[in-house]
């Protein structure tokens, strides 16, 4: 795998260096609609950027194959995606969004990291038409950065990420119903990763208690930790019925392996929605067996399967994060068509405003696995299913909508 990737990477490098530029405008389109994507394509969470970019391109291909976007004057626009790397660092994210806002782009999809999204939304104008606020007026439709409540920072920020509070509220209630004799929960949290931390303290912990469970304690570790003996020992002593872990695959696997080594006994294992990814299965499929995770993406519908296949062409895997990028593209097409975006050189600022207003006015959109409810705050409530790790893949355990 490493070796293969390396060749790929070398090939990509050669292509990039020889300066192959974008494709020529095909005859049947009248204009181009530029959508920017941005996120981490280098550094630890490079896979987020790779997957998001692939899914965006796949979605653009699908839109273009269907004739493109119908513009305000009846002409057809071709969707063109440009993707920028922000290395998952706040200052670079700000730089990238300024670059995007200075260009021909009508909207941006990104970023992939919560710690970029938060400062980024901070530089946007807080309320629309507030003359005293000099913030950037540019619509952003986030797919991956998932930490709770970010979109309310600005009226220009929208997210299509799952509402974790809903997901875990539902999950704990379901667990309570299904195994009525389970009483206690022990947590695990990756303390220095914004999303993991938020989800444990503000979501899992609260929802577990709300569902009537007793939270006995929590194990804490850091993103860079490799040794979990002490934490797991405390976890073992607590003898909780349910173990609920809020962490990314990087440390989830290490922790699960240590739990197995120390033979920690539990009845139910719950994971963070972000860890329902390929990494977990590649890293520790055996130890993660049975872990229950709520996720807003699984290839259960025809649309989801199609999106998955489309992303595969770009070597992107569709997961709960990147699938949102596909959905975002489809939603944007719908918004642009209903609002009559012109995609002319002189209409960029007006187009952006139309897209913002369009996104703000949406109440419902069609997602890959069902209907997505949109809120005034810019956030969404997405349908979700519970999956569990079985062998080399995620299988649907339960679909709360049915």
């Amino acid at each position, binding site marked *: 795998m490493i070796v293969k990737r390396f060749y790929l990477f070398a090939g990509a490098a050669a292509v990039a260096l020889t300066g192959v530029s974008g494709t020529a405008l095909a005859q049947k389109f009248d204009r181009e609609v530029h959508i920017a994507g941005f996120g981490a394509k280098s550094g630890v969470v490079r896979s987020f950027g790779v997957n998001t970019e692939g899914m965006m391109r796949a979605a653009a291909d699908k839109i273009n194959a269907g004739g493109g976007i119908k513009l305000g004057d009846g002409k057809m626009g071709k969707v063109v995606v440009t993707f920028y790397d922000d290395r998952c660092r706040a200052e670079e994210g700000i730089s990238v969004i300024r670059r995007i806002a200075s260009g021909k782009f009508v909207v941006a999809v990104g970023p992939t990291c919560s710690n970029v999204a938060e400062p980024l939304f901070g530089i946007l104008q807080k309320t629309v038409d507030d003359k005293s606020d000099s913030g950037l007026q540019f619509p952003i439709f986030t797919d991956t950065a998932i930490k709770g409540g970010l979109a309310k920072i600005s009226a220009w920020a929208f997210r299509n990420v799952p509402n974790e509070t809903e997901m875990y509220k539902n999950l704990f209630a379901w667990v309570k119903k299904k195994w009525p004799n389970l009483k206690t929960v022990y947590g695990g949290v990756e303390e220095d990763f914004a999303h993991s931390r938020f989800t444990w303290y503000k979501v899992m912990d609260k929802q577990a208690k709300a569902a009537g469970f007793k939270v006995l304690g929590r194990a804490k570790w850091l*993103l*860079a930790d490799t040794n979990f003996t002490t934490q797991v020992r405390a976890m073992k002593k607590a003898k909780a019925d349910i173990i609920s872990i809020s962490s990314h695959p990087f440390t989830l696997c290490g922790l699960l392996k240590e739990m197995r080594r120390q033979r920690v006994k539990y009845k139910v294992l719950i994971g963070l929605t972000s860890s329902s990814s390929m990494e977990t299965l590649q890293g520790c499929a055996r130890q993660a067996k049975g872990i229950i995770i709520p996720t807003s993406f699984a290839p259960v519908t025809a649309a989801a399967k199609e999106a998955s296949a489309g992303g595969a062409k770009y070597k992107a895997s569709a997961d709960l994060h990147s699938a949102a990028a596909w959905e975002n593209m489809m939603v944007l097409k719908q918004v642009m068509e209903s609002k009559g975006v012109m995609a002319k050189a002189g209409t960029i600022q007006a187009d952006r405003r139309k897209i913002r207003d369009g996104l703000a006015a949406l109440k419902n959109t069609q997602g890959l696995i069902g209907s997505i409810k949109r809120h005034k705050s810019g956030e969404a409530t997405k349908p979700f299913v519970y999956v569990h790790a079985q062998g080399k893949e995620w299988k649907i355990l339960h679909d709360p909508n049915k």
Partner: protein
Amino acid sequence: MDYVQAIVDGLLFGAVYALIGIGFTLIFGVMNKINMAYAAASFAGAYVSLGIAQVVGLSGDFGLPPFVMFLVSAVAGGVFAYIVYLICFRFTPDHYELASLMATIGTLLMVDEMVVQATNGEPQNYPEVLQGIFDNPMLEFSEEFAIRGDLLTLFIVAVIATLGLLWVLFRTKLGLATRAVAQQRMAAQLCGIRVDRTNATTFVIAGVLGGLAGAMIGAVVGTLLQSLVVIPLTIKGLIVTVIGGLGSIPGAIVGGLMVGAFENVFLAIRGVTERDMYVMLLLFVFLAFRPQGLFGRVAVRD
């Protein structure tokens, strides 16, 4: 009993720090310079062994037996260390240590990103071959006290590797040359020792050790994830080197075990978020009261 357990766990994991610390200290001892890319290059060696294992498969009909993985990693570690020597030390000015320092930082960043590109930043499963040595991965002495078999194995291998290194240093002509260059470079030259060759050899030895350490750490952790492991381990390795005394191999070993035990105790007392703060404090205590470290010589000169 909890604290005994925490100390024992920490001591065992401290062997990892000790191995990294030995590499830093060996190179520092000979060249009086820090090789910031040491840990990165060592882990790159472990990645090579993993890459080869992914191609030919592990243990299968034509697959790699586990010890071959370690060997491959050690060899690759040596090769990378030599490359680091060439690009960061061989041609940079000798008396201007900033140049080699910056070059190794550049290499650290580059190696880090190369692995990210090769793996998409995804963690790579490293076969936990050390676990197979004991039937049960844990040696349970009682309900309260247990030792991880693979960590114990790593600890033992680390001790053996260190003894081997000491044998090379104190019983071979190569070791004589290495010590001579470390202690008095000009006199070593006058005795006919080629300083550049000795430096390069020391790098290779440290790299072989590092490659071995990288593979064993991979096997113990079960995962290789460059970006998350390398910089933290580089920092811990440097701290161990200073605490042990720059250039002192016994110092690196004792320092490594000490830091391992110390941080685990503070993890148990104060929690993970404050743990590293106390490790830094330990370093500052040393800098203030014993700047030469545990086994260092006299004054701290650059």
